[in-house]
């Protein structure tokens, strides 16, 4: 039983990071139908920037994080302005490819700026694990779990009640009608990208504290795709629940199935889920999808 519970808890805390990164995908997809395959690089840049500020300036973590978020906002704005806006009427494949190109461009840039070495974060959270009865959690994981919940609540409220939030949903629903409301679609998209970059940077910072920051971190972008598909590309709650689900399933597969097949299933199982989900319920558990008109 302990074994099961521990695996469950691990799944949930790892899943919370997945959910966080998945959130970045969903935010952008909702408002502009773009799947940002450069999300992993956003995460990476966020991690590097925060780490660099902290090691270079001795600023307290919170201040460093805030500066990182400001820089992420700028990153989001410029990506939207320079890459996405000029392609607003382009077909899906062009936009997928543009974000792949963006991933490559940013990845190269990161290499040129920060080099190749994995860097470790200065200690922010205590490393001593916390014990709940028989269960063990590392503080960083606990914090990422809390962060995810806070973000979930924040975004739910934001989209439900704030003017910008409603405008963003309006643009996602019907951009032209939103325009007729006097909503500036350009601004909304820019804000969306900025928020997505901010979320990614938070993810990068947390992930960096767990594993250090190195180029390999960008692979989280692909790792998390199954989460988004499972949860539904356009559902914020779906991203988070999908994150938890994938985290749990992955760890259960790792815990129970891996010994049977000789290991390695843990990393592939999410993609098997993707194939199943796409066959059975293409728009994910919580996605809205939509009928196509001829």
């Amino acid at each position, binding site marked *: 039983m302990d074994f099961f519970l521990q695996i469950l808890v691990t799944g949930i805390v790892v899943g919370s990071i997945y959910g966080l990164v998945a959130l970045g995908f969903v935010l952008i997809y909702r408002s502009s139908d773009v799947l940002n395959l450069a999300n992993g690089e956003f995460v990476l840049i966020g991690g590097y920037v925060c780490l660099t500020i902290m090691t270079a300036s001795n600023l307290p973590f919170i201040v460093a994080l805030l500066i990182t978020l400001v820089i992420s906002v700028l990153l989001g704005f410029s990506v939207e302005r320079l890459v996405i806006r000029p392609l607003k009427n382009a077909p899906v494949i062009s936009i997928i490819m543009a974000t792949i190109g963006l991933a490559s461009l940013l990845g*190269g840039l990161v290499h040129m700026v920060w080099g190749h070495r994995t860097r470790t974060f200065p200690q922010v959270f205590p490393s001593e694990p916390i014990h709940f009865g028989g269960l063990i959690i590392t503080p960083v994981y606990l914090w990422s779990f809390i962060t995810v919940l806070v973000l979930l609540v924040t975004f739910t409220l934001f989209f439900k009640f704030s003017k910008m939030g409603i405008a963003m949903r309006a643009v996602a629903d019907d951009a032209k009608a939103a325009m007729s409301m006097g909503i500036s679609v350009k601004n909304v998209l820019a804000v969306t990208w900025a928020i997505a970059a901010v979320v990614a940077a938070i993810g990068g910072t947390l992930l960096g504290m767990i594993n250090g920051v190195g180029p390999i971190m960008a692979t989280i972008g692909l790792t998390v795709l199954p989460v988004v*598909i499972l949860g539904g590309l356009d559902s914020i709650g779906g991203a988070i629940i999908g994150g938890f689900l994938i985290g749990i399933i992955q760890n259960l597969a790792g815990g129970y199935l891996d010994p049977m097949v000789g290991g390695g299933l843990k990393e592939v199982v999410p993609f*098997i889920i993707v194939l199943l989900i796409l066959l059975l319920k293409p728009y994910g558990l919580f996605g809205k999808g939509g009928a196509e008109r*001829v």
Partner: protein
Amino acid sequence: MKSILGKNLGNYRTSYRADMALLNSRNKKIGMVILLLVIFLLPMFASNYFIGLMTLCIISSIGAIGLNILTGFTGQISIGVGAFLGVGGYASAILTTSMGYSFWIALPLAGIITAIIGGLFGIPSLRLKGLYLAIATLAAQFVILFIIRRWVSLTNGTSGMVLQRPTIGDFALSSNTSYYYLSAIAFLLSAFYAINLVRSRTGRAFFAVRDRDMAAQIMGINLFKYKVMAFAISSFFIGIAGSLLAHYTMIVSPEFYEINVSIQYLAMILIGGLGSVFGSILGAFFITLLPVVLNIIVGSLSGILTDLSHILSAFEEFVFGAVIILFLIFEPGGLAHMWSNTVNYFKKWPFSY
């Protein structure tokens, strides 16, 4: 129809057959002959190194043509080309090395096996569109590679398999030049087939599916058949490319077929021009040669920027991304469109209006 100058000012076709002919103008015929001559005489003039590069380029061209049939012609996005190249490569390796077939049998079989597996993965395309299909193929990429890694008895797992260069009688195609000729022939056949496909009933059905699949269905096009067919035909080419590449490098291993290969192929057809056979070829050359060119540029700059050579790969990555984005924004038609613009410009020159 003679003009005053006694010269035809245009191509007049007097029968459907003439209109449908592959080389429907004199210029095209001349161009074709020149192209063939260039391809076959190239080894006499170019260095061994250059021939090696050209071999890589034309093998990639075959794969790119394949992907363009699926993505450019039929509008089905695939981010799983890498894995399908792998299927072709492994099929060839297993057929020749483990089962002892000759390369000449293994090559077409590798294409057919890849076509079958590609067709299988094409089945979901009936329900999935755009982004979702792209992600399904991405998942296929991971799952296929996982199977290759795990099916040790068949694929020798992660350590890969060894292949031999093909032989004709006692003559092994082990030199750069001989393998270049082999690839060039395969390449010409592929290009010829693909150009014909565009003009066939099937090709037009593909275009209809791409432009509006539901409308195509209403027009009586069997969506299922054509979508799966597009996957299969496309995978056939990719399988052939995979097999050729495997015999060229004489080894297959899962690391050959990672996701970045899929991305490179997508970049080829996008930069070359979606839906254009000629564009696929241009794109394949462009993407294959891009690092070589950058290398030269960086090399010539190394006097000024000594550190740059150390981050050359990162710089390559950066430029690769930038080139993709620039093309998408400024020339979505790709190199093929640029080419036809240029050609048209000179055709009308000096009266460009």
